[in-house]
């Protein structure tokens, strides 16, 4: 059982990294607290797997330290760390039965036979593998194999954290939910830290208590799913999370007003700290932009309206910029002229991609 601390960690696959671009993983400081369910979310190639492999010891970081509680494990080999990892493609030992597969990590660590047998039964029960225990592992379905991979991690009683590297990639869609809820149950039943790497926001947001969003080798935001949705700390987070993602519009900000082209948008906060040099953008989620028949609000051109099942999303143009907006129930739009109503509490201002806090104007809490 351990708290995992990443201390000034950075990694480059090149031998002699000089510039920031040489680093696959830019400097990161992070603490994974004991027993948490974390998701590491980001697009392919953003450094998620590298980070995971550093924690498990498969990759040695170029700089920085990895601590389990207060013990520096940076130079400790994978097999010496109390870490388990489940990979994208299920790994089972083909020639062995499910039982032998589950016992394998204990056998390698010379755990007495009767203790191994008891532990294997226990974990098999937890993962619902009891009825296949004596079958060969090679011909089982992918989700069963993935459970075996997971079981080989859980079977070690000393395991402090289990790392998942996109474990549901090869699982049939209808089994994904099932397996994910099994993971949640296990997380609840056993006091184990879980770090779950994925590029699928639904997986991340449903699995984790805390989501760490990575982009281009760096962590851009860590927070609960709500925080990521309500207050994206970076335009990337706004864009990556949500479907469709956040609307990001280049703008100018003067005090408590944002100006897009010739359109003025009143803001809840004042931004006096912005100097002229930054690239300023306004971000608002489609959920907080409502399309209304032409009238009060910002005049827009409607391009098309998509029915995505639980909601209708309008693709509109504001001052020549594309924008997504939600169409409230019961509202029908005639022609291409319509108006937008922005929810002022959910308008965020970004400078060079990063969220600017702003000051509450007029004494009102935002």
């Amino acid at each position, binding site marked *: 059982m351990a708290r995992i601390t990443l201390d000034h960690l950075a990694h480059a696959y090149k031998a002699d990294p000089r510039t920031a671009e040489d680093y696959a993983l830019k400097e990161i400081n992070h603490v994974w607290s004991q027993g948490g369910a974390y998701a590491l979310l980001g697009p392919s190639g953003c450094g998620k797997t590298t980070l995971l492999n550093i924690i498990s010891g498969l990759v040695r970081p170029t700089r920085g330290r990895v601590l389990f509680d207060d013990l520096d494990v940076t130079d400790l080999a994978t*097999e010496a760390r109390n870490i388990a990892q489940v990979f994208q493609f299920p790994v089972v030992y083909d020639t062995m039965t499910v039982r032998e597969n589950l016992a394998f990590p204990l056998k390698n660590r010379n755990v007495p036979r009767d203790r191994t047998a008891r532990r294997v039964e226990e974990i098999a029960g937890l993962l619902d593998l009891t009825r296949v225990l004596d079958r060969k592992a090679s011909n089982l379905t992918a989700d069963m194999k993935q459970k075996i991979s997971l079981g080989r991690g859980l079977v070690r009683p000393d395991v402090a954290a289990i790392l998942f590297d996109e474990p549901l990639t090869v699982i049939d869609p209808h089994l994904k939910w099932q397996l994910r809820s099994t993971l949640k149950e296990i997380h609840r039943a056993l006091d184990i830290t879980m770090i779950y790497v994925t590029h699928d926001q639904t997986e991340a947001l449903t699995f984790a208590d805390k989501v760490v969003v990575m982009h281009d080798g760096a962590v851009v935001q860590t927070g609960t799913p709500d925080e990521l949705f309500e207050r994206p700390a970076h335009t990337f987070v706004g864009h990556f999370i949500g479907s469709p993602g956040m609307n990001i519009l280049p703008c100018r900000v003067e005090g408590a007003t944002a100006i897009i082209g010739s359109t003025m948008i009143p803001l809840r906060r004042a931004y006096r700290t912005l100097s002229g040099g930054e690239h300023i953008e306004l971000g608002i989620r489609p959920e907080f932009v409502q399309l209304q028949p032409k009238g009060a609000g910002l005049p827009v051109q409607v391009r098309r309206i998509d029915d995505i099942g639980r909601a209708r999303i309008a693709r509109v143009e504001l001052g020549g910029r594309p924008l997504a907006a939600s169409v409230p129930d019961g509202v029908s739009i005639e022609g291409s002229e319509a108006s937008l109503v922005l929810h002022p509490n959910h308008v965020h201002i970004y400078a060079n991609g990063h969220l600017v806090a702003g000051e509450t104007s007029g004494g009102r809490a935002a």
Partner: protein
Amino acid sequence: MTKTVNNKAWFFVLPVFAIVAFSAVLPLMTVVNYSVQDTFGNNQFFWNGIGWFQELLDPSSQLGEQFLSSLMRTLLFSFIILLIEVPLGIAVALSMPREGWTVALCLVLMALPLLIPWNVVGTIWQVFARGDIGLLGWVVNRLGIDYNYTGDPLDAWVTIIVMDVWHWTSLVALLCYAGLKSIPDAYYQAARIDGASRWAVFRTIQLPKMRRVLLIAVLLRFMDSFMIYTEPFVLTGGGPGNATTFLSIDLVKLALGQFDLGKAAAMSLVYNLIILAICWVFYTVMTNVDAGRERVEA
């Protein structure tokens, strides 16, 4: 599921039948024809029934004894070759680099012996192993070991086996290497996390994943070594005495040396059947091991 029955399909395989008939069946039939007849020249043939086969398979006859000893020699040779080349090939494949420029270098070096014509291989070793001018033979003799492959049967065997190992281990190694390369990294990483030793990784991951290519390697090496002709013919000519007279050499001596067409034809057929039978056994046993596994799982 219903199968579509369409007899027109036969029409499309007809050319294949025709070609196979001309290239394989007809020549084979001439051999069958010779095997049941005798001739005293002048292109006159006499019916001999299964006489040649009876003589061939009767160890008390001179032909039968000769055949049996050649067969035993060939079997022993194949056995030794498999025993050396398969483990050695696996070992070489395991120690080859997995990435970097050295991979290409290794592959080219390994492929070189496979590209040399067989009689050239024989010639190379014939010179290389000579006690007077060959580097190998000279060095070995200089080390105080009395080595002469033209005079001593054991030396001849050792030379032929070393030559074959040099010539063909690469094939096994390359096949195994291909099998090893197809194992995803995740298996090795999972094994490290599970705390598996080097030996456990080999037993539980590498060997099972190589099983299919090993089947091909064993089959190929068995067939080729059982049919070996050119290299020992060039190197020792079957000698000293009959020490390295394998079935193929024996057959050629019989057919083209003594021009005993009937005996040679009978021997070819039996030789052919033995190869087919042994390959079938290999194949059935090794695929049954697979199927047996799956049946347990089902």
